[in-house]
């Protein structure tokens, strides 16, 4: 109805203030949330891709107790089929266990991680962290250890480290391993407590020739994760094995992402509360200024609900104009920074590279983020509409 447009146009200044307050709030909030979500999505994706995999395969019971007796077996044919799955970029079998490492009189409990050197290089770019010595070959019987661990135990390249741990089925695992290389691992925990060896050496150490603690599987497209998990389940023996998505294995990381986001969500709601009160103030003024006009309209025969509809439509048109304008700007900006992410510089960037991660901060184009802003504005508009609608329904048309 033309009354809606005329009324908006009548008070152009106020309409522009309303529209632009919605516009700036939506623009700011959408980009803020988009940026933060994008950084987290990238961070999670980085971690999954280079460290833990999007999908993990373990023997039933392993996730609960992480003991060698719950290690798994997988045949070469299945491995080959997994690697052939379209969306899968990397399948890294692991042998993860604990051992006491000693050299001379010093000893320390460490994590022993059996890796496929080639696949690990492809996945996390492990060789880049070498500060001395050489990387492992596929059948190597030597170790790569963290810098901190080397210092603690007083071992260097070429020295031999004794490892004592638990083997399969209660046997004890004992071995002497020459140090092939020293790694600069980024966190102190890892740097002081990790030794890598080839899968073959690790399996021999624990006396379990074909055993793995698990498979870490990275995918190309996280959106197709569920389909890929189904494909993995079709390949592996699900009687004995469980297939886990990262939503399960990385629960803690997801939680910290949520906690971090909560702060910005609070800022977002504060913004919208301010905008909401601004709109409410405008609408209260507008309603009171137009009381007489409303009275005349009802007197000459306009039904109250029809009048309320016009006023509601005015507010809705203004709010939606603000939202649409803001999204028209925010979406291309988010898309641009999604395709051309902000690049980190300096130490941060270096640290990311050490982890085998890309030092990029993209924006997220997750439609949910933008839909959320629209919904919030609509809710605000609906709430603000209550005032004039209520006023109109109670308006006394005589005695003016």
């Amino acid at each position, binding site marked *: 109805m*033309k*009354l809606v447009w*005329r*009324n908006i*146009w*009548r008070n152009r200044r106020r309409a522009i203030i309303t529209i632009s307050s919605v516009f700036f709030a939506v623009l700011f909030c959408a980009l803020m949330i988009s940026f933060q979500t994008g950084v987290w999505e990238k961070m999670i994706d980085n971690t999954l891709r280079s460290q833990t995999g999007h999908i993990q395969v373990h023997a039933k019971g392993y996730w609960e107790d992480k003991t060698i007796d719950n290690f798994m077996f997988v045949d070469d044919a299945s491995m080959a089929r997994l690697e052939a799955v379209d969306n899968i970029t990397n399948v890294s079998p692991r042998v993860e266990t604990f051992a006491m490492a000693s050299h001379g009189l010093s000893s320390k409990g460490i994590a022993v991680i059996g890796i496929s050197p080639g696949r690990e290089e492809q996945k996390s770019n492990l060789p880049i962290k070498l500060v001395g010595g050489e990387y492992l070959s596929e059948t190597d019987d030597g170790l790569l250890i963290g810098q901190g661990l080397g210092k603690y135990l007083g071992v260097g390249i070429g020295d031999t480290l004794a490892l004592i741990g638990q083997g399969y089925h209660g046997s004890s695992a004992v071995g002497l391993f020459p140090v092939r290389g020293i790694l600069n691992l980024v966190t102190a925990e890892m740097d002081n407590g990790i030794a890598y060896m080839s899968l073959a050496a690790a399996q021999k150490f624990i006396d379990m020739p074909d055993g793995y603690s698990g498979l870490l599987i990275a995918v190309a497209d996280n959106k197709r994760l569920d389909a890929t998990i189904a494909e993995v389940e079709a390949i592996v023996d699900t009687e004995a094995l469980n297939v886990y998505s990262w939503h399960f294995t990385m629960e803690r990381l997801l939680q910290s992402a949520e906690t971090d986001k909560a702060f910005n969500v609070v800022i977002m709601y504060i913004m919208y509360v301010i905008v909401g009160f601004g709109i409410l103030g405008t609408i209260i003024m507008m309603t009171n200024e137009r009381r*007489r*006009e409303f009275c*005349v*309209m*009802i*007197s*000459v*025969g*306009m*039904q*109250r609900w*029809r009048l309320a509809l016009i006023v509601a439509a005015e507010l809705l048109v203004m709010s939606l104009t603000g939202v649409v304008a803001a999204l028209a700007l925010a979406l291309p900006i988010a898309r641009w920074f999604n395709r051309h992410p902000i690049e980190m510089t300096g130490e941060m960037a270096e640290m990311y590279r050490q982890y085998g991660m890309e030092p990029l901060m993209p924006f997220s184009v997750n439609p949910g983020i933008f839909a959320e802003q629209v919904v919030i504005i609509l809710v605000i508009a609906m709430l603000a509409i209550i005032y004039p609608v209520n006023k109109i329904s109670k308006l006394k*048309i*005589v005695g003016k």
Partner: protein
Amino acid sequence: MNIIETKSLCKIFRDTAQEVYAVNNVDLSITAGEFTAIVGPSGSGKTTLLNMIGGLDTPTSGSIIVDGKDISTLSENETTAFRLHHIGFVFQAYNLIPVLSAKENVSFIMELQGRPKAEIDSRASELLGAVGLADRMDSRPAKLSGGQQQRVAVARALASRPRFVLADEPTANLDSKSAANLLDIMVKLNEQEGVTFIFSTHDPRIVAKARRIITLEDGGIVSDRSV
């Protein structure tokens, strides 16, 4: 035939301290084609009586029959619809919707009635012509003088083809020349188109143009004479 009939119509306003008999036991009949003035001093109950006849206010007791229908028994929505289809209104001031042009203000009523577009358009032009505003059809109310605004209001009141037009002191805010002009237009519409007008006033020069004069005092009719 009577188009309006009130029986023992009363309106009592109750304040904390006192009761005001704004309209007191009024029996009144109005037939089609009348040109009737309700006169009386300020506070005599003219507005209250017109509001009740127009379905804008409800009586404390008594009944108002319009076109054979007791309008005091209608629901709020029914009353609103009844006003739209049967009664034309001209108020003392601020009659018009400020964002609409003169022609749109007149069309507005017919749009509410859901009339066809072509009819709305031709009737709005015709009515504005009849009140002498053919050349101001696209002006907004703010661009019109008080007298012109009231003439638009008369045109709007007629747009719905009502059974009668209620005008509560339509000339109160006008200078005497505009007031006389407005009355002449109302007289002409009454004589040529047979439109029934009931208006209140306390301007003796306006009263002189009426053909029936009902005088109120303290809410009651003290005289009712036709001239």
